[in-house]
């Protein structure tokens, strides 16, 4: 049989089980699109490549599987960069396949030529240039393996147009490479030592993050915590890995963490850091983080061990395997003393919520929305104040129910990620909490959403500012506000209707609660613009660089 490179790519993607691909065609990837014409793979035409890569992220983050997006060379490729960097920092397995000018023109400054390979070196887990159509039989399965294996991450494959068009004569379709099974052999003496430390500890805390999510280990975390009565704090990426309803749950730590969470961490004598990377937003001043605690760090990526915080003991490996090793060795313990100290701290330093009558306080809106949707609904956020409020108060009970840009903090993430999540989970409700600043950074994807008519509810918490920037200017720059207030404010409801998506502007409604209820209950996409107080702050807040025990605001005494 005769096949060209583009047909080989599509066939290999079909073999990998890919059902949806987002992207935009252009001059150098037209052969790939031509091959897609005959394929069963569904293509989602996004309106900007960054949106396309975030749609792929939404598919991947909500399912845990590898997702794929396409872009053409030059601007198509450069438009992907932000979303690729975002996937790298949050360890999300996506594969970007870019068109490139024909091999003979590489390096000649040809039309729409850019060094995609060079540009993506620092932001991918690995990248490839396909130099011949035959090489694709190796590169594509290898990209899937790499994206998912160990610590997941983005992979980019740059395919020159002539490679897409190159005809290959095949006697038979090459057998797929045998799957390399990585053994999760973890030294049993290390597991034993760790279990002894847990059994011996007086005040242990589990500090869990995105590694637990990627390692599908939330059930094992629950069992360990319950058996030995270990309180659990999560990072932003770890939200949902431990149910907020559990009495052992201690909320999110860090810069906008709960007051009692940050204070209890200070008391720990053993910190079980599982699938975390001691990010500055989580630990504050890392030198002063958990000063009393012996730290045991478990992560699949050896480079994370002792990167920012020197730990007492570490295990490099699969978290689920480590936990399964630990579970039988860890003793049952009711930890009365420690749990009562935790409860006391919780009671003395609770998370301060606004009065229920303050309907338009972002916290009350987020909590109210959570009561209107099913428990398995997926929440995406953009970046800023609304993101932190969502992290603080939305009741996350299971993994992959919160999709948020944690490491890179990319405004513009929320809407396309919601589209990807809805594609992958057609039976679920998807809510996108966003801000008036963030939504504009990928608002063109409303057109994609209208095309697909997906069940996505976009809720804009509109404070007419770059809220978190304004808050920092208020708290740390003497109230000298510059470039944080928008001069004009677009009519988001009118914009949404212009894209063909029903919308509500709550500033024009009389019965806010009823309108919000009806909007959420409506089938298909809806945008809801909600005016909130312009000067509202997210509390508590730790000043960048300060220890997390030094929090500003959100204290009972502030009331």
């Amino acid at each position, binding site marked *: 049989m005769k096949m060209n490179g583009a047909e080989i790519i599509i066939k290999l993607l079909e073999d990998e089980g890919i059902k949806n691909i987002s992207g935009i065609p252009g001059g150098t990837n037209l052969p790939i699109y031509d091959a897609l014409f005959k394929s069963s793979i569904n293509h989602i035409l996004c309106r900007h490549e960054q949106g396309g890569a975030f749609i792929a992220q939404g598919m991947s983050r909500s399912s845990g599987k590898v997702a794929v997006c396409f872009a053409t060379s030059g601007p198509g490729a450069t438009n992907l960069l932000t979303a690729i960097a975002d996937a790298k920092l949050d360890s999300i397995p996506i594969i970007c396949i870019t068109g490139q000018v024909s091999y003979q023109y590489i390096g000649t400054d040809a039309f729409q030529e850019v060094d995609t390979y*060079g540009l993506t070196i*620092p932001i991918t887990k690995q990248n490839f*240039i396909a130099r011949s159509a035959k090489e694709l039989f190796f590169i594509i399965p290898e990209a899937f393996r*790499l994206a998912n294996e160990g610590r997941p991450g983005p992979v980019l494959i740059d395919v020159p147009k002539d490679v897409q068009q190159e005809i290959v004569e095949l006697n038979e379709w090459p057998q797929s490479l045998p799957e390399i099974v990585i053994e999760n052999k973890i030294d049993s003496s290390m597991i034993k030592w760790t279990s002894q430390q847990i059994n011996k500890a007086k005040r242990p805390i589990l500090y869990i993050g995105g590694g637990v999510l990627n390692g599908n280990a939330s059930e094992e975390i629950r069992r360990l915590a319950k058996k030995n009565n270990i309180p659990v704090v999560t990072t932003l990426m770890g939200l949902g890995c431990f149910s907020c309803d559990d009495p052992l749950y201690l909320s999110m730590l860090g810069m906008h963490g709960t007051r009692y969470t940050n204070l209890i961490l200070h008391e720990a004598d053993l910190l079980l850091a599982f699938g975390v990377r001691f990010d500055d937003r989580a630990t504050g001043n890392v030198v002063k983080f958990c000063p009393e605690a012996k730290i045991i760090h478990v992560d699949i990526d050896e*480079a994370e061990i*002792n*990167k920012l915080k020197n730990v007492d003991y570490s295990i490099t490996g699969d978290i689920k395997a480590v936990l399964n090793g630990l579970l039988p060795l860890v003793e049952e313990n009711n930890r009365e003393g420690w749990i009562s100290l935790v409860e006391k701290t919780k009671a003395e330093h609770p998370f301060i919520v606004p009065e229920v009558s303050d309907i338009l306080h972002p916290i009350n809106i987020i909590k109210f929305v959570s009561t209107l949707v099913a428990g398995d609904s997926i929440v995406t956020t953009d970046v800023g104040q609304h993101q932190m409020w969502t992290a603080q108060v939305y009741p996350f009970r299971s993994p992959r129910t919160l999709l948020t840009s944690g490491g890179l903090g990319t405004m513009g993430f929320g809407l396309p990620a919601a589209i990807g999540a809805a594609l992958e989970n057609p039976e679920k409700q998807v809510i996108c909490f966003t801000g008036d600043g963030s939504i504009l950074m990928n608002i063109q994807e409303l057109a994609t959403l209208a095309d697909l008519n997906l069940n996505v509810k976009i809720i804009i918490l509109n404070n007419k500012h770059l809220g978190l920037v304004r808050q920092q200017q208020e708290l740390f720059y003497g109230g000298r506000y510059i470039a944080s207030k928008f001069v004009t404010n677009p009519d988001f409801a009118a914009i949404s209707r212009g894209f063909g998506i029903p919308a509500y502007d709550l500033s024009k409604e009389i019965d806010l609660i009823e309108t919000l209820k009806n909007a959420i209950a409506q089938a298909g996409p809806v945008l809801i613009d909600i005016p909130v107080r312009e000067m509202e702050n997210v509390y508590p807040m730790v000043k960048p660089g300060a220890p997390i025990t030094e929090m500003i605001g959100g204290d009972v005494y502030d009331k």
Partner: protein
Amino acid sequence: MFMTNKKYFVIELLVNNHAGVMSHINGLFARRAFNLEGILCGKIGDGSTSKMYLLVDNDDFLVQIVKQLNKLYDILEVTVHQEFDISVFNNFEELLKIKVD
């Protein structure tokens, strides 16, 4: 002048020999703010692999550098040496002074 060096280490790498490997390694040092004092590189055997020798400061970053290098796809082996002849890195200009009679 083979001796134990206190100020520097040499990291010996066995790498796949294709365009782009050098970029991955240089890029790693640049973006993680690691100092790189010297590089020697050349292909070995049938040319499918190369050897690289990186001269790096003996500082707190060494362990992290080695871990990050180990993660690079095209790096096959990483070995750290403290016993080496540093003069090789100090006399590069001699390369163009060699006269052929």
